[in-house]
């Protein structure tokens, strides 16, 4: 039915909803819940696609919804809904309670919500500061035009997306928070072709909380980079498969640490019993040259947050210090079920997912070597300049596509090679990262996992892996 509720009986963004939220939490606690959490969001998104010399797609979208999670003991019931009326939210609480089959009479104490922590104050103007569709379109078209550098480029694309998310988080431990999140990404892609040869190149850039960032984006530099990459790879031979030392470039090269090791340090993996690092706290799990960090506090980075999706401010977590495992990435359920303290890492794609322990900005810290030191140390191996995506299996095996690779011979970069895949297991590869460069850089990405797709940053300096399986032909 069309909404006919009065304003006081539904969530209104930008207003004080404290009484209504407290009423709903009291309702859940009164029905026997140990813990009640309400996550409400309002989104205003937009995306633009330029192909060749035309804007071919402009897609605005907006929506609102709520995710309600009830804990009883260590189990939880989660209900999501688009109905933000008091009736709709209470119905969702009832549904979650019913699912959990709560029968005991023990009632927890709810003392009401704490003072509102409002992270929105300086952010409300963002929606008026982000570039207009017209401005975005013009710059994307200039960008795709910049990619047209020779007649071997047969496909040129530029894409932009903006996600503006306003959230309200309230829970029975008193948490009461509002925040506005802004994420923008822009990417360029080309396909080059010459007779039977084909190659592609792509780069993506992203920021959080920086409404002006797209205007500052150096599209010429990006276009040159993508073009050069596609040209370098156009006539590349397939790599010969085998075991060899590799040097992984900085920026998105960090995706390997993210996928192969980072996920295994999330408490969700401990809960499942799928991480080999579960009982390795304060033990050596990596080469002593490796220090790895996960944090949500670096201003402007794609994985940064003012507050996580459970209302906790993010911390800087040193996961591995000089090869020794120091910390796991934890959320509320992770703390409850594994005992590892929350790290401000409870994240979700949107209201329809329950938060889970997820990475934010994750990187290997810089070392003391130059990139040349790493390459010079290898007589025969592979330099992975640009990485594609990858995945990790249920037993920890990972594989990653190398988008742009070069053979290393006698300490020098030689011919480009394509078709390479890096295969291994974190437990075996981490001790083989023997050299870290001094050129740490980060790159944005999207991470898909149990609580949906979230914005993250991956990163590292150039690193050398002494030996890894390279798949090829």
């Amino acid at each position, binding site marked *: 039915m069309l909404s006919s509720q009065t304003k006081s009986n539904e969530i209104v963004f930008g207003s004080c909803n404290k009484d209504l939220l407290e009423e709903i939490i009291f309702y859940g606690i009164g029905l026997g819940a140990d813990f009640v959490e309400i996550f409400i969001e309002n989104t205003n998104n937009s995306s633009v696609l330029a192909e060749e010399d*035309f804007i071919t797609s402009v897609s605005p979208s907006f929506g609102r919804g709520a995710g309600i999670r009830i804990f009883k003991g260590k189990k939880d019931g989660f209900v999501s809904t688009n109905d933000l009326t008091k009736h709709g939210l209470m119905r969702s609480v009832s549904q979650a309670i019913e699912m959990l089959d709560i029968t005991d009479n023990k009632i927890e104490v709810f003392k009401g919500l704490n003072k509102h922590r409002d992270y929105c104050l300086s952010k409300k103007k963002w929606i008026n500061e982000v570039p207009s569709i017209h401005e975005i379109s013009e710059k994307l078209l200039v960008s795709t035009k910049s990619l047209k550098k020779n007649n071997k480029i047969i496909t040129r694309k530029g894409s932009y997306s903006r996600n503006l998310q306003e959230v309200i988080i309230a829970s029975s431990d008193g948490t009461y928070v509002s925040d506005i999140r802004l994420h923008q990404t822009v990417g360029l892609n080309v396909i080059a072709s010459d007779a039977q040869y084909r190659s592609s190149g792509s780069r993506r850039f992203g920021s959080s909380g920086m409404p002006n960032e797209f205007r500052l984006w150096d599209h010429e530099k990006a276009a040159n980079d993508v073009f050069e990459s596609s040209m370098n790879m156009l006539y590349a031979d397939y790599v010969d498969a085998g075991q060899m030392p590799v040097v992984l470039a900085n920026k998105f090269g960090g995706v390997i640490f993210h996928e192969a090791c980072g996920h295994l340090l999330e408490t969700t993996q401990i809960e499942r019993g799928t991480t080999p690092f579960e009982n390795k706290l304060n033990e050596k799990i990596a080469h002593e040259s490796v220090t790895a960090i996960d944090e949500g506090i670096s201003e402007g980075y794609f994985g940064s947050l003012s507050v996580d999706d459970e209302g906790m401010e993010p911390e800087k977590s040193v996961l591995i210090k000089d090869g020794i495992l120091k910390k796991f990435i934890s959320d509320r359920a992770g703390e409850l079920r594994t005992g590892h303290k929350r790290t401000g890492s409870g994240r979700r794609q949107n209201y329809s997912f329950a938060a889970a322990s997820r990475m934010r900005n994750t990187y290997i810290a810089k070392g003391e070597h130059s990139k040349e030191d790493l390459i010079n140390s290898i007589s025969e191996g592979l330099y992975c300049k640009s990485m594609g995506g990858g995945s990790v299996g249920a037993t920890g095996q990972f594989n990653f596509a190398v988008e742009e690779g070069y053979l290393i011979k006698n300490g020098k970069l030689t011919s480009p090679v394509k078709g390479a895949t890096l295969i291994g297991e974190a437990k075996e590869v981490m001790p083989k990262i023997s050299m870290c460069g001094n050129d740490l850089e980060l790159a944005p990405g999207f991470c898909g996992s149990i609580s949906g797709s979230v914005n993250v940053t991956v990163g590292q300096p150039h690193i050398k892996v002494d030996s890894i399986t390279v798949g*090829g032909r």
Partner: protein
Amino acid sequence: MNSKEITTQISKAADSLNLKKWDYGASFSNDYSVQVDKGEAKQLKASQKQILTIRVWNESNLVGITTTSDISQSGIEKALNQANIASDFGNKNERTEFSPLAKDPIEVKYTKKRKPVGIKKLLTLLREAEVKLLESHESIKSVPYNGLSESFYERVYANSDGAFRSYTKSQAALYLYARAEENNKKPRSSGSVKLGYGVEDIDIESCIKDASSKTISHLNYSSIKTDKYLICFSPESFLTIINAFSSMFNARSILDGVSLSNKNSIGQKLSTEALNIYDDGLHEKNISSSPFDGEGTPTKRLCLINKGRLENFIHSESTARIFKTIPTGHAGLGSKVSVSPDWIVVEKSDENSDLKTSLDHSTYEGEFVYIEELNAIHAGVRASQGSFSLPFDGWLYKNGKKISIESATVAGDIKYLLKNIVNIETNQEVTTSGISPHVWVDDLSITGDA
């Protein structure tokens, strides 16, 4: 609001904005799912979702679009307004129209809508399944990935020209991924997925049995030597490859320059004459079948490869108009309308005399690699270039013995793969993504670390 009321509401709001031409697609769903951990409920989920996508055509016949989950009167008005604003940026280079088939009759068959069994029943069934799987073999220590869900949904398409289509369905899914551990060996994992119209249609026992036997069969493993091998693709893995390179059949991909085919590729020989491939969204085994696509075009069976030659492309309204043909029922509603296959069916054609029929996965005694499942498709496939390099789960058959392969990838080129098919077995198997027999391919590269 139900779908008729939404249509009326959109029509009224469009009139007030003087928008003469519009269409919309909507989906409404109620989903319930459970996960367990060693006999205990882990997470129980319920969700109610609604999504509305509205397109409008402005006076210059340019299209704008907006998607929203707010299906209130104000939400609909806001969506129409936003779509109207977006239409100023509509694609001037490629016109979009209503599908000429949006009012044709649709074939609704095999619609089996079940009633919800409820969270408690889902939980009981999944707990029992987990226990049985754990008890099926002493090496199976946990079932880290598991879930049982049921979903009830309605899909709608309507336009200002009077087209209105709606259907409701139910679907249930069970997945069980077990983890086995033995002393001084690496943990091994495998699993099984089963779909049904409702929970009562899911063969839970066979899901447990499959998950158990697959997991156990990987306990004795070994590395494989990097080399070229004779490969037998399981039905599931062959369908994975075909779906990954479906841009070969996709008119949208051709127009976008990301397909290995071009406008003139129809009739091109891609493979042995023994190979037929269809897209058959309405197949009785396709639990997720939809009688119409995002533009309201009826879904139908379409031959993609006939006796080894490219026979048809899949189309949306606009690609069909550009190719001077009719839409095929493969469109997804969006600012840029997408095109994708529904349900791939692979079969052996009548022209199969060149096949080596002695190659049968259950009887062949020579050396070959059996690929059970391909992984990391998003990372290892370059569809626009035709190349792939993919990790897989499978076995090496050698000297009458079968041993699980540890950590290996298969690499090649889709055109090379199709041309090197040496046998297509007779028996087809139903999978979650289509139907296929076992398919044998000679001389593909495998990288292992032996």
